[in-house]
């Protein structure tokens, strides 16, 4: 049932004390994205550094979390080490249901522990456990050790960082239950800065349900749409990896640091190839019957006497783009091996792959030397990339420390800004055209998920700035409502506005349902206020020259259309934040 107030746990790692408080505003903030932005505006300190102990690390779920299928994600919000501004990142796994079943709408972590710790939570436990012995351990080993140390029911989430987070890399991710991640914008570094190696949450409580049969009937109806129709087939069949072949065909798949957009090597890394040769099985986030998590399998002979080891690696479109086509790797097992290394060191795979692609081209151009990098990098050769990932995560010398602060930070120092594939942060895998380049560059999360701009490009819409801007703003508003619930965006066609209103109403949230459209617009503005409160100026965002050189099925990028849309979107963002004109 939906409460009119949020229940929020604040844990201060400096003092070791906690507090649970109620906060009004469910009808205006909803939860998830809206709640996270509200809390960040209230608690973050814009005048302090991103890693100041006072800065909050926020995890939030929404009013429908767990109550309906695919309401299965959590929002993590923080001040980003990449740009020292508001950042949001989303993940699934068990994180959302674990929070739901501890009875919390949000968890806020402030302060900094003197020693590395694990925060252990449940309905009747809040404790900080010494984790000195886990510091330096990779993200996968950390998960395994904590599973045996904390005797839980199996209904828990283990959120942890690897060495990249400990080293405060701006591209450090937070690993969630091995195969999911709060990937982008450096959340792992925020945990590292707080000396917080992991958060383990036991969801050992339960929630009341409404009386009568309406709720169960609505649940069953939505469940059937998700499982008995073809609406979600793409996601559990080949998964997002099916996009590789499609985008390569369109000449929109970035290859070798976006020096090309199509390559015959696609046959080695297509979704079908991964399924045929490596797919071990599927898995799901808790509360999602779709099961889009694809776990690939690769074995390696490590001794002449037929001694093998095996790796199980979660794959998706974006990781394959970032560690496959972007690095010129065209053999699925090699790509999985690089992904596994990324997973262990706790880097955001998209940022890491794109960063190494830039480093490879910088080496080709002689902007940096092998003496500086400590390892040779060549497109298509896996060995260098396997060696480079721990160096990037560890910041082992000046070059790797600069690159860990972001590809553009390194490019500003060494040169090569023109070919740094950075759209706010390292690009997502869509060389689809002007609308996507603008949307990721300026978008709140600098992500392909803020809007469906990559789809808009593929719709071959005419180059009309007004129409493109309308699409960006409306699509963002609709997605903000979903990410406030917090739905998996794969379910966006199932959870249309009417369905969302039915879900809220059946759980006793009639007033919230009636005001959903207004809340969406308000939250859209609130998030931009949170971002701009930390100094974001969308007019200052530049789109590197490499994106103007891209040629897709539509031909070369139109620089005037790109620039006009960039300025129009920047203006709209300022207006949404209340700082227009």
């Amino acid at each position: 049932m939906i409460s009119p107030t949020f229940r929020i746990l604040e844990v201060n790692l400096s003092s070791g004390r906690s507090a649970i408080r109620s906060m009004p505003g469910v009808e205006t903030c909803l939860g998830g994205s809206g709640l996270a932005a509200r809390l960040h505006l209230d608690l973050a300190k814009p005048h302090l550094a991103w890693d100041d102990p006072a800065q909050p690390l926020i995890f939030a779920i929404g009013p429908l979390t767990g109550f309906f299928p695919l309401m299965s994600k959590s929002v993590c919000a923080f001040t980003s080490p990449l740009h020292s501004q508001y950042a949001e990142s989303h993940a699934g796994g068990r994180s959302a249901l674990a929070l739901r079943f501890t009875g919390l709408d949000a968890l806020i972590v402030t302060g900094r522990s003197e020693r590395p710790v694990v925060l252990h939570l449940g309905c009747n436990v809040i404790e900080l456990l010494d984790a000195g012995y886990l510091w330096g351990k990779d993200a996968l080993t950390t998960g395994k050790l904590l599973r045996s140390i904390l005797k839980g029911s199996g209904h828990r989430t283990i959120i942890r960082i690897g060495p990249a987070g400990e080293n405060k890399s701006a591209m450090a991710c937070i690993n969630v239950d091995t195969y999911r991640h709060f990937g982008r914008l450096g959340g792992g570094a925020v945990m590292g800065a707080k000396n917080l190696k992991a958060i383990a949450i036991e969801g050992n409580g339960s929630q009341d349900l409404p009386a009568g049969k309406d709720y169960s009937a609505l649940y069953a109806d939505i469940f059937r749409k998700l499982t008995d129709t073809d609406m979600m087939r793409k996601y559990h069949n080949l998964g997002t990896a099916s996009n590789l072949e499609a985008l390569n065909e369109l000449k929109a798949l970035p290859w070798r640091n976006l020096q090309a957009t199509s390559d015959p090597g696609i046959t080695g890394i297509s979704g079908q190839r991964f399924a045929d040769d490596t797919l071990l099985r599927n898995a799901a986030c808790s509360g999602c019957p779709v099961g889009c998590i694809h776990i690939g399998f690769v074995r390696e002979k490590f001794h002449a006497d037929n001694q093998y080891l095996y790796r199980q690696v979660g794959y998706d479109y974006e990781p394959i783009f970032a560690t496959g086509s972007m690095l010129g790797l065209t053999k699925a097992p090699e790509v999985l091996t690089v992904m596994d290394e990324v997973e262990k060191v706790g880097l955001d795979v998209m940022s890491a792959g794109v960063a190494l692609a830039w480093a490879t081209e910088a080496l080709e151009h002689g902007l940096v030397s092998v003496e500086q990098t400590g390892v040779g990098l060549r497109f298509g050769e896996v060995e260098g990339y396997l060696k480079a990932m721990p160096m990037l995560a560890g910041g082992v010398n000046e070059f790797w420390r600069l690159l860990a602060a972001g590809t553009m930070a390194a490019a500003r120092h060494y040169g090569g800004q023109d070919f740094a594939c950075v759209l706010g942060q390292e690009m997502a895998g869509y060389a689809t055209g002007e609308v996507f380049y603008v949307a990721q560059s300026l978008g709140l999360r600098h992500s392909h998920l803020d809007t469906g701009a990559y789809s808009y490009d593929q719709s071959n819409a005419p180059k009309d700035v007004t129409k493109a801007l309308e699409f960006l703003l409306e699509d963002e508003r609709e997605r903000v409502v979903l990410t406030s619930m917090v739905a998996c965006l794969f379910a966006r066609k199932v959870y249309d506005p009417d369905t969302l209103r039915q879900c809220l109403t059946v759980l006793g949230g009639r007033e919230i349902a009636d005001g959903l459209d207004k809340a969406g617009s308000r939250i859209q503005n609130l998030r931009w206020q949170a971002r701009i409160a930390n100094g974001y100026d969308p007019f200052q965002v530049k789109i590197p020259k490499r994106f103007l050189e891209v040629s897709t099925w539509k031909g070369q990028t139109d620089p005037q259309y790109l620039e006009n849309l960039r300025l129009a979107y920047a203006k709209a963002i300022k207006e949404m934040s209340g700082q227009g004109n």
Partner: protein
Amino acid sequence: MKQLVASRMERCIGCHSCSLACARLVHKCLSWENAGIRIQSSGGLSTGFLAKVCLTCDPPPCAAACPTGSLKARKGGGVVQQKKLCIQCGKCAAACPVEAIALDRLGNPYVCIHCGSCVDFCPHDCLEMREVEA
């Protein structure tokens, strides 16, 4: 007489839809814990999943341990439950050899009653209702 059998757990993706269905439809709550069937990873998500569910012992040790008759042997194996007789002593859960009985924070036991409500919510047909001789 039909029994719930988790016969194809190698197909399980760990979505917990079965547990959520049991809690929702049988026990009228939102939970992945307060349910007659519960899903656990068998040592981390990388190694697949197990169902913690009644294996229809006959005679059932949980019923033997129950001091009030709240749990009684069911024809064909397993138990029937009369919740109003339960004193939350937890003896049933302790007696179950496969941890198929969950206790909530108040000590109330949750055990599969073989009603089959969960079966339709498994997206991969891991579960089935199988006819047995009573």
